[in-house]
């Protein structure tokens, strides 16, 4: 049960870059690639983080983003999935791709009582785990996790549970979501979309920006990694999750589910808060999220912990966020530096902790990535680097 789970390879795409190298450049230069929404027509004049100049690999944009991240992960992978003798699982988090939300189909149905069924057929073919299994001819366990904004992190946690429970040997795990009209309208109705680039943890933060992207990790049981003759540097040391049992959209004021998730991850890894070098926080830049999350981080790790939110570079990518940020966290551990928290200027005394204002060197063995979600879902992934 305590078998190590290695990160054999990774890939990501977001407004910060179409691969990991581009993303690191964006972080280094502090670019914030935000702009007007161009992917669909909307009455709402809200900025968003779109992946620009992107040639779709499939008609389904979310699947396309996912495939881009998977392809990068496979390019960097020492093993070979095609024809592999190992059991390979697929666990992907999303929000948009799980919803039957085709406006054209529904409008026609609403007006006439009938509609062209082809969007439904596309939807039925669009289950992300199924689509990857078909693409790469994989026959291991496969499922899509739909825990709103923690979906990507929980998908990695679910894959980790499979690996530790001998249900597969290798897993493709991550999350993907496209920028879509439904969440743009929905989050706007909730009054939590900012008119300007988001400012996570800033005292004047006005809300989130939506984004899109995908993050993917190829995870292996350590015994498989040794057979492939690779020497992994990075591991998922632990995963914890907890429920607020409080409210559908608001986090518990004391962050009890988040505390429970972090505590579980630390307990599973048998380490203390003091051994965590830095935290990639969920940090959406909404007043509620950042207040609760910041307070929990300060309470558990102290005000000096190095922490940042990468949403100032990507926007909130919903079901992809937890996975993209796990990739960023692992990259930062590997590279030995973390980016500044884009958008942050002024400390919020009510939170009592500030994210990083400069790109900062780190030299630690452990880092944490946290995710909070609608529904009171909370997840914590602890990443470990071995020298």
């Amino acid at each position, binding site marked *: 049960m305590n078998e190590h789970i290695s990160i054999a390879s990774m890939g990501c795409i977001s407004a910060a870059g179409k691969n990991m190298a581009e993303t690191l450049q964006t972080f280094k230069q502090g670019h914030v690639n935000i702009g007007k929404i161009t992917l669909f027509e909307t009455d709402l004049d809200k900025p968003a983080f779109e992946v620009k100049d992107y040639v779709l690999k499939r008609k389904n944009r979310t699947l396309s983003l996912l495939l881009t991240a998977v392809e990068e992960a496979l390019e960097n992978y020492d093993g070979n999935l095609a024809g592999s003798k190992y059991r390979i699982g697929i666990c992907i988090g999303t929000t948009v791709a799980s919803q039957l939300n085709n406006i054209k189909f*529904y409008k026609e149905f609403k007006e006439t009582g009938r509609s062209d069924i082809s969007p439904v057929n596309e939807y039925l073919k669009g289950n992300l785990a199924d689509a990857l299994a078909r693409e790469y001819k994989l026959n291991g366990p496969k499922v899509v996790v739909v825990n709103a904004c923690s979906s990507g992190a929980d998908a990695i946690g679910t894959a980790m549970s499979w690996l530790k*429970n001998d249900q597969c040997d290798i897993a493709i795990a991550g999350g993907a979501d496209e920028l879509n009209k439904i969440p743009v309208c929905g989050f706007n109705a909730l009054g939590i979309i900012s008119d300007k680039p988001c400012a996570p943890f800033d005292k004047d933060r006005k809300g989130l920006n939506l984004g899109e992207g995908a993050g993917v990790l190829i995870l292996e049981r350590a015994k498989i990694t040794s057979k492939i003759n690779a020497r992994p540097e990075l591991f998922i040391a632990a995963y914890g999750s907890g429920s607020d049992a409080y409210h559908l959209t608001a986090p518990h004021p004391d962050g009890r589910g988040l505390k429970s998730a972090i505590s579980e991850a630390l307990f599973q890894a048998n380490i203390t808060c003091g051994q965590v070098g830095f935290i990639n926080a969920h940090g959406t830049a909404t007043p509620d999220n950042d207040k609760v999350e910041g307070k929990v981080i300060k309470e558990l790790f102290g005000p000096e912990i190095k922490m940042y939110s990468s949403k100032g570079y990507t926007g909130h990518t919903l079901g992809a966020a937890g996975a993209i940020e796990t990739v960023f966290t692992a990259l930062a551990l590997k590279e030995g530096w973390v980016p500044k928290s884009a958008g942050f200027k002024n400390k919020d005394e009510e939170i009592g902790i500030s994210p990083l204002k400069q790109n900062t060197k780190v030299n630690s063995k452990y880092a944490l990535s946290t995710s909070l979600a609608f529904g009171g879902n909370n997840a914590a992934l602890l990443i470990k680097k071995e020298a």
Partner: protein
Amino acid sequence: MNIQGIGILSGTGRGIKSFEQALERGPATPKVSMYSPATNKEIPVFSIDNALLKDPLVLKSSRRADRFCRMAVLAAWDALADSGIKIREEEKLGVIVATAFGPHKTTFNFLDNILDYGDAAVSPTIFSHSVHNAAASYITSALNTQGPVSTLTDFCFPFHEALRLAEAWINQGRCQYVLIGTVDELSPAMEYICDQKCDINEEGKMKPFEFSDKAQTVPGEGSVFFLLSKNEENTKYCRIKRKNEAAVADMFILESDGMITDETVYKQLDTGDANLFNASPIFGGMMSSTGFHCASAALMLKNDRIYSKFAQDQNSHARNSPDNIVSVKYCCNRNKAIVRLTK
């Protein structure tokens, strides 16, 4: 894992007793039908009476919940109540909700908002209920449980994937008990989709043992939850395990309910001389029907009897009651998934 409690909500009513009585009565045809303007005909559906979704005591923290969430909360609550187990805080209760389509009716209501009022005038409440994990959120609030919780979606095998994760969580010691269940609902748009994608039996009759290449169905909806514990404990119903391959069994439940058009694949399964069973004629066809089949199996194992009106061999009451039952489901790509339930 052991099944310690079952909560169920379907066209048969609410509660495991109601489901048991429906199994006693035998196959039914639905009382509800829906008019399809596309085909100018009435489509029978096994739908849940909305009166069943009112329970002020259980739903007091779910007053704003939509129909999908109410179905899930009531079944989850009933599963825990049926077990009679008081779970201590340190034991941790996990919650796993599996669904094929999620709260699509609420998503369509949200689209109604966009179409009727424009992008800037939609309801935030409807939006927040359109996420798949809203049901799990209401369950955790109703039960005030802070253990691990997850919502999974899959068109073919949602219940099997929930079982897989529950097994992992219990083996890892993440929780001592897991409430797992499936929920899927009907709506005018979904009934239209079913009418377009499936061959619906206009008389409302499910014919599970025809194994036809033009299988018919009657669409259903519902929610079923199981309280699972680890093997070492005594069980109220039976043991349950997801399997990769079908083994020898006293009884096979073949989940042929017309949701895939070509069901001839079920004929290829080697079931020996085991009894074949399928209770879908009381709850209808659903992508996430496995939980309902497992509930019928659990009752047979607990009660030491066969509900012979749902067996292929109608004289099966003369047979010995089963000690182990294997439930097999095929998907349209001919992949299969198996659950084994044993005394």
